[in-house]
């Protein structure tokens, strides 16, 4: 589930964001409590709490005092907008760099993408 590349709290936050983006977690749906999350994934509850706190800071989750944490109504739209912005710098640009290294021209890439239409 988690790897050594980055702190687990960031991986937790990313995992929940992906669930929100994919629709697996709906708006205003309650997410697991930090203790449930910690017990399920066998991690320290402070680590889980830090991941959730990050999501509250970013506005992906909101707290209802004494009840738990829920998905913000606009979380999916906001995440999509942010990911779309990063799509070209983080996905397309590295692909173009690799294409250049191995001698694949832009025309060839466009032809290939045409097949995916």
């Amino acid at each position, binding site marked *: 589930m988690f790897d*050594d*590349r980055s*702190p687990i709290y960031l991986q937790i936050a990313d995992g929940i964001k992906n669930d929100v983006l994919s629709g697996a977690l709906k708006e205003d749906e309650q997410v697991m409590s930090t203790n449930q999350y910690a*017990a399920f994934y*066998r991690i*320290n509850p402070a680590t889980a709490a830090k991941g959730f706190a990050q999501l509250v800071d970013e506005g992906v989750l909101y707290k209802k005092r004494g009840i738990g944490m829920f998905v913000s109504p606009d979380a999916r739209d906001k995440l999509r907008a942010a990911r779309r912005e990063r799509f070209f710098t983080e996905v397309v640009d*590295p692909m173009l760099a690799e294409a250049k290294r191995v001698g694949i021209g832009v025309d060839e890439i466009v032809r290939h993408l045409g097949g995916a239409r």
Partner: protein
Amino acid sequence: MIELRDVTVRFGSTVAVDDVRLDLPTGKIYGLLGRNGSGKTSLLSALASYRRPTAGTVRFDGVDAFENPAVMRHTCFIRDTLDVSDSERVRAVLRVAGWMRPGWDADYAARLADLFELDPSKRVSALSRGRRSALGVVLGLASRAPLTILDETYLGMDAVARADFYRELLADYLAHPRTIILSTHLIEEVADLLERVVILDRGRVLLHAEADELRGRGIKVTGPDTVVADFAAGHHVLAEQSLGGVRAVTLDWRPAPDDVARGEAAGLTFGPVGIQDLFVHLTSPSQRLEALR
């Protein structure tokens, strides 16, 4: 808060713990990591007030811990010897723990004994190494002591028993939060359970940090000799290897995504450094290099 101030433990001319200063907020799970002979048990003995430090003080919420009955009652220190009589039967050992420990949960102890297949009618002397360790786990967890110290308690337990131990430890901590200190060198197995990590090296505190912060703290960089040297310049090198014109270095540095992209464009490849690797690099004398030359 548990405060260790200038704690030194000496055995004759050997310095086991060397001027340690630590602030440990309560209610967390700590991992005390260190190689054999790094002073883990000596430090824990001082922390548990089992041994008066040669110098320095240990305080619990501002109160001196040594020979303080109130602090002692709330401390459970499980060490190799178990501090029980070998001729006693398991059943009797658990009964005595129930008299001595204010927080003892006899039902929980029975469930744990069952889980680890500890026969209550057996004498301690007749237990295998793994079952003896399991008895330590039962004593440590069922005591529910506000300060619970488990000194390499997993020794001799097989992989299945250790997995049971870690699961129970986390579940019971979630239900009854308290300060738990685990000493171990099986770091990978427990890293996810820990909130904070203290690394001891030759009696000194090498590092005290949030466990999760150590993930991704280091990075392994591989590529052409000169390119790697350029990239690594100015950063702390934990380890390095060279073969032909290729060099691999482990850096104590968390590069930004831009740095990684720049490195990749220059022909470098990057790999993660886990907590276990970081520990090995930080405590291995052959790998202590100040800077890349």
